[in-house]
């Protein structure tokens, strides 16, 4: 059993922060796949962690904490779908079910930290214009429409720029993981 889970179950609340830090990225990534809208993953991850802490006594020590979290994230995600569907004409459809089906809780990766370091490095190397879009959209959480307003471009151009930026980052990370430091 995860040492932090063991400490929590024995009543040591100080272990919570370390536990969240350990699983945060993986929970967020799974939440991104079950979320009704991009940008809601953080909310879902937050609610899932809160539920997990409140119900840690129900966690079976013989089980896998990551898999248990995965179940909670999935159900919080479903609740968010229902909440949105109430009046916003948003309905869970085949694509949502299918993505949930093909997305599994990411396995623990010893190279996760290195990958994140490369990602940060590659963000720094983006052209200024791309960096500005990344800052507005990802750091400040601003929608494509508002980014377009602020940068005085069309919404479509911002969306295409984001696709290109993600592609550039993937290529940059791959190159750097392969040892190319240019």
């Amino acid at each position: 059993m995860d040492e932090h889970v063991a400490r929590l179950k024995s009543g040591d609340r100080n272990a919570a922060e370390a536990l969240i830090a350990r699983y945060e990225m993986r929970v967020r990534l799974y939440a991104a796949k079950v979320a009704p809208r991009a940008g809601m993953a953080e909310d879902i991850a937050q609610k899932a962690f809160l539920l997990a802490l409140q119900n840690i006594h129900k966690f079976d020590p013989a089980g896998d904490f990551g898999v248990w979290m995965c179940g909670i994230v999935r159900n919080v995600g479903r609740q968010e779908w229902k909440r949105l569907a109430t009046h916003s004409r948003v309905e869970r459809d085949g694509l949502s079910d299918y993505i949930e089906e093909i997305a599994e809780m990411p396995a623990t990766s010893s190279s996760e930290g290195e990958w994140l370091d490369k990602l940060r490095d590659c963000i720094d190397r983006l052209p200024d214009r791309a960096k500005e879009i990344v800052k507005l959209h990802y750091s400040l959480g601003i929608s494509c429409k508002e980014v377009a307003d602020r940068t005085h471009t069309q919404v479509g151009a911002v969306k295409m720029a984001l696709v290109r930026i993600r592609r550039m980052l993937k290529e940059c990370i791959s190159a750097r993981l392969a040892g190319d430091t240019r």
Partner: protein
Amino acid sequence: MSGAHDNFWALTGGYLNGDLSAAERRELETLLRNDANLRQQFLAEVELDETLRSVCRASENGRSDIADKVLRSWPAVPHTANSVNAMHAAAPKTFWRRHFKQVAAAAAVLLAVGIFLALFQFGKVQPPLATIVEINGTALLQHDNTSRPLALAETIGRREAVSVAAGSSVLLSYADGTEVRLLEGSRAFIGGEPTGRPRNGSKEIFLAAGRLVSTVAPQPARQPMFINTPGAQTTVLGTTVNASCTAARTRIDVDEGRVEVSSLDGAHTALVSAGEFAFVKNAAVTVIRKFSVNLQAESGGRQPPMQRHFAAGIDYVASSVADQGSVTLEADLDQGRYAVWCRVLAASSNADSFHVAIDDGAEEVFDVAEGKWSPHWQWSQLSTRTGNRIEKSGLVETAPRILTLKTGRHKFTFRCREPNSALDAILITSDPEYVPE
């Protein structure tokens, strides 16, 4: 890249932005079902998008704030119906346990609803209005003369106000999916003005100060949502609308749909549509269509010795001879009032001014960075000299120029005044409060 691949990336981008139509979602599902490679790429794209969000937020805030938020809420939040449902859905249950709990829950709900309705009938209980679903930073809940820190999952009732500290924000959610985000420095009464009479069934927010951003779910025709400020009333039937107010004015920006904005006395009313904003000031309502155009200086007509230069990735124009050389930029504009911002480089007080003429008007001196000289490019609003000097500093006093223009093509001519004053671009906007970053 093939057309099919382009389509896949466009659909994936649309999925991440949350703006796929039902047909596009079905199309994406079909692509994913039929191609294992695309599935892998799609999941990698979703992961990268979320990782970027997480990494960039953490860089912006200094650290990830999930742990902070969760730990802050942990001791305070009891198990809610939702939390119980989510946990139970995650855990296996016996048939008996499930039915026993359902019957017990149904009985409890019926009892609670009965008590609630009975009390509500006699006016002793106000219906819950909104729930706090996100707190970034610090916020207070104020009731009468008391205040305490706001907690996640709290329900806010009538005569209760939420105050949001600098650098913080709070997200409220209503049962119908309507969401309201209160931004830093805001103070809002969630049930409407505390001294006003509640309107039956309508949601009401009284924004006493600051700014909010709301996404309003479709409301019943006779029960619109009201967003009020000390100077204005906004009636919303279902749209995305931003409101901000100061003591002097209220501003309403509409992103989708249409709202009705009235002065507080009801004497002046205007409909504000998507892409427009309204100012309510001194009981008058002014509606303005958002418009802005960005013109690159190097694309303008130049008179020597104004020359095009390229340095550090920036195309710009500058003249090395005092009072000689100009660049003229042109734009087609509708009738209205416009602010003009210029991206300039003014490294010192010897290289920081142009003579500027609009159409065939007289030239006025534009001090582009008076007291704000910098080796870096900066945005500076087109201004004119007032004729005064600022006490102590001795700097020239300037005042922003707001241009009133008729429909048609307009010329903006920048003639060199001090050599090496550099111009990269100008931005003409109908929004007098807009400040480029």
